[in-house]
């Protein structure tokens, strides 16, 4: 991997560079709606998602298709697994629905 998302002399993470997560669970909530459970791969990156509030959302990418914003359906008090309730309405959400558990997707706050 080249680069770490940071320019020289800066500690800031590149906001356009997603954190890698892995799909750890997938639950059908209704017609074309699924609950996707995501866990950050790097332990250090879990800390970035340790505190989120009502109204905050994450951009979730279906790699190679695109990204879209989703509100969190989970609460930080339940641990490291992030949950998103996702309705299938377009290309990104269709791809997210088709992901198998243990596959990659990406996240950023």
């Amino acid at each position: 991997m080249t680069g770490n998302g940071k320019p020289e002399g800066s500690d800031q993470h590149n906001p356009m560079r997603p954190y890698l997560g892995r799909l750890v669970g997938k639950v059908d909530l209704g017609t074309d709606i699924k609950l996707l459970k995501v866990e950050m791969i790097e332990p250090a990156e879990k800390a970035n998602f340790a505190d989120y509030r009502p109204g905050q959302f994450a951009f979730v990418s279906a790699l190679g298709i695109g990204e879209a914003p989703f509100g969190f359906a989970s609460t930080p008090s339940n641990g490291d697994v992030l949950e998103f309730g996702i309705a299938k309405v377009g290309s990104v959400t269709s791809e997210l629905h088709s992901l198998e558990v243990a596959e990659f997707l990406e996240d950023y706050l």
Partner: protein
Amino acid sequence: MKLLPQETLRTWLDRLTNDVTLIAPRIVDGIVLYKSVSTSSEVILDYSRPKMSAKEFILPSTERILSIEKRDREVTLSEPTSADQVIFGLRPCDAHGIAVLDTVFLKREPVDLNYAQRRAATALIGISCPQMWEDCFCTSVGGAPDDPNHVDLLLTAVKDGYVVNVVTEKGKALIAELELQEYGGELTRPALNQVEPVLIQEQWPERFLDSFWDLLAERCLECRMCAYLCPACRCFDVRDQLTQQGIGYSQHDRLRCWDSCTGSNYRVVAGGHNPRATKGQRLRNRFFCKFHYIPETYGLSGCVGCGRCIEACPVNIDIVEVLRDVSRASNLLKTSEISHNAGLGGTA
């Protein structure tokens, strides 16, 4: 004041082309554009306003911001790096445009690092306009044909060369090895166009619900030319594109592409809802962004007064006319309020 003699200018530019990518005004298919040049002989010095701004060298129309490589279940992400570049012959209005981009992408957290890298690798050498050209109105939006504020170096043409105004440390480094002469003459101020009225901040919200915007939008074709030519428009969309594919392997580019608030699908969200459903709402946003939202949020005009959108609009939507109409409406309303209040005995 220091003078850069005409003949030194060419050798200096040639030396710059060896060290960095040099962007300069050049004739391409009969029109003047900022483009990369390989020798100083390609650079033209007698030009008015290039057809397009230099925005594309700081915020490209399509830019790869991430490469994604998928191999079985492993994913690798990598980012592009920026090469050093110098933009020479930048008009002050185009530099103002880059200043707007800077404030939006760099002034507040989180900083856009793709932009920050390219911007840090870029030096700006401006050349004062000897006059304001047709459709120019930079003086109405806080600029001037010889405004040194947003460049690293500003050159102003005099007989036999250019007077050099060193604005930043970056600019100082660019001319460090040059032998400049003393210039004892005077600089003539460029000829100015008439200053157009621009509403003060507080007046814009009062114009938000005017039917004027719908009337204006009746002729808008939503071609988005105004946004693409604008040195200060910086909205973008992000999408992924497949570049290579094999068995268990694929490569994608994440691209950042120019977008425009006047496009009908700009604000459409999942499910199809469009908070700016009418053309009038979208066109109104264009003007409010430039004259109200950007100045109020960042303290500088979101319009640089270059007049390119006036020249290019296929249906003659003229930003200066819009400003005139909006301020006339504002003043008319004020007058009628005053007479109304006077009619009530002036007790209000």
